[in-house]
């Protein structure tokens, strides 16, 4: 009998190539993990051992993956004991890394104007997804990001005009601008060039400025805190656009064995508990909210 799920996740003792630290306890970790890099996709994650003293692995989404160099890049925020210990790990050390895990985002090839929304540690998979769309070509994405700690990059006025976005909201992520992908930033902290409000405000402005035919080209892909995803799901419903959300939950095994990371979803046969690790982490927003 065929068992296509077998041997799809790799365990690697990944060497730390770089570990950069940013304000707000945010960290960018570059790992040499060729097996994982070869198979990673937008929305997939790694499950890694932060430190020997906290051996239960932590799931961290992949921001970038380079098949040729065999590198994966992660952006994480130190939140609990495990990730604080991870932040202390140094270049040259090795981290036990399991991945890539999960069903990531499924790009809707019919909808050429994707809206990518990332909040906080939900930003990294959006970078991955934007890069994938750039590689594929033919898409005109807008990336919206929200953060209540300083963004882990130098905010730069965008060179790309986006209809519907209020005047003065020009701050963008330089990397995306360099890729010719429009982005806009939101925060309640009053950062220069950023919208002082929620990502959903900008999403509504952008969708409002479209006609019905344009809206049919929109698919929303989102990752971030639960209340943000719930609000985005509401916007998607109001405007009649499709929406995929990447979920998170405390996790133990990361490979579908323990059913520790489940969330409740609605299926055709009623409510069900689905594992974030291997059934997700990406779900249709309508099944979750």
């Amino acid at each position, binding site marked *: 009998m065929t*068992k296509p799920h077998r041997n799809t996740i790799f*365990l690697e003792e990944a060497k730390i190539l770089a570990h950069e630290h940013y304000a707000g306890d945010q960290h960018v970790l570059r790992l040499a993990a060729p097996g994982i890099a070869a198979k990673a996709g937008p929305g997939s994650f790694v499950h890694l051992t932060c430190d020997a003293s906290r051996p239960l*692995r932590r799931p961290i989404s992949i921001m970038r993956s380079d098949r040729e160099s065999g590198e994966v890049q992660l952006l994480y925020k130190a939140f609990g004991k495990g990730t604080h210990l991870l932040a202390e790990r140094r270049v040259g050390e090795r981290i036990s890394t399991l991945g890539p895990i999960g069903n990531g985002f499924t790009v809707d090839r019919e909808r050429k104007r994707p809206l990518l929304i990332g909040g906080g540690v939900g930003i990294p998979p959006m970078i991955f997804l934007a890069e994938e769309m750039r590689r594929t070509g033919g898409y005109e994405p807008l990336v919206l990001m929200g953060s209540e700690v300083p963004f882990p990059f130098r905010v730069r006025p965008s060179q790309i005009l986006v209809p519907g976005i209020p005047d003065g909201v020009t701050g963008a992520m330089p990397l995306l601008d360099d890729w010719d992908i429009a982005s806009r930033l939101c925060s309640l902290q009053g950062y220069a060039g950023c919208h002082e409000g929620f990502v959903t405000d900008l999403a509504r402005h952008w969708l409002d400025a479209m006609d019905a035919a344009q809206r049919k080209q929109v698919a929303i892909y989102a990752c971030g805190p639960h209340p943000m995803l719930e609000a985005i799901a509401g916007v998607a419903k109001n405007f009649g656009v499709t929406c995929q959300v990447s979920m998170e*939950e405390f996790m*133990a095994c990361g*490979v579908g*064995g323990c*059913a520790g*990371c489940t969330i*409740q979803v609605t299926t055709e046969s009623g409510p069900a508990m689905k594992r974030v690790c291997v059934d997700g982490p990406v779900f249709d927003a309508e099944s979750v909210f």
Partner: protein
Amino acid sequence: MTTKDDKMLSTEFCGMRFDTPLVLLSGCVGFGEEYTRVEGFSNRDVGAVCLKGTTLEARLGNAPHRVYETPGGMLNAIGLQNPGARYVVDTILPTLDFEETRFIANIAGSTVEEYAEVARIFDDSSVDAIEINISCPNVKAGGVAFGNDPEMSARVVEAVRRATTKPLITKLSPNQTDIAASASRCIEAGTDGFAVINTLMGMAIDIEQRAPILGNRQGGLSGPAIKPVALLKTHQVYQVCRPHGIPIIGQGGIASAQDALEFLIAGASAVGVGTALFYDPLICPKINAGIAEYLDRHKIPEVSQLVGSLATAPPAPACGN
């Protein structure tokens, strides 16, 4: 050489041939195929796989959060999420490869009758044995009520015994006053073997929210933190089992070959691995290799000869003045 070829690790358990003394524990490996996602993992590296706890009807399980790391271990409160016995037998078992290892059903229920009914469904299936989960700490009005009481435990075992001719393994709770008394009653009731122990009940609190972290408020503690408790309970149950030739799967915090050897010496015929698999999905071949190395070094031809070999009197002091 693969583990399967290493005859010294092969052992018999309740009439089944285990290729190695390792058993993957119920609730840690889904319905047997989940860990095969990991390259390098093989069910052939273990003697048996205990499938996820199964009830008569499908259960959704507990609300999140269901797992939380604690020093030296973790808490879980899954709540017996499963698709129901009929679905497991009709849809899942046919997808398993019984050439690779032995598969053991793990059954649970809210009433004695439910246990018996689930056992009857598995009796007419391909599973190699049935493990009775009389000690699940995470379901209200469920297993733990039976597992805490030797008489109730025995009633469940009796009812299941009547329902099946498959080997029966009773999973004992550490959350009871006298585990040996319970083991004794379960032997009278017809169990063929034991799994010792299930998780210890525990709790974790979010001090900012002043709320329990687990959706179920409480959960089962597993991992290295519970190993000394599990080792003692295994040894206590072994005292009861020895005269009857009833074997034990010793389990609780095993994360290395040394841990596994301690349980074998304490009286376990096989050893369970659960939480350690979350730490290192490829730990089983390492434990096998460590056990084989030990047997070689001590010139013990097969693992069964190590079982219950704990010295009966304390050794003489190394230095005698």
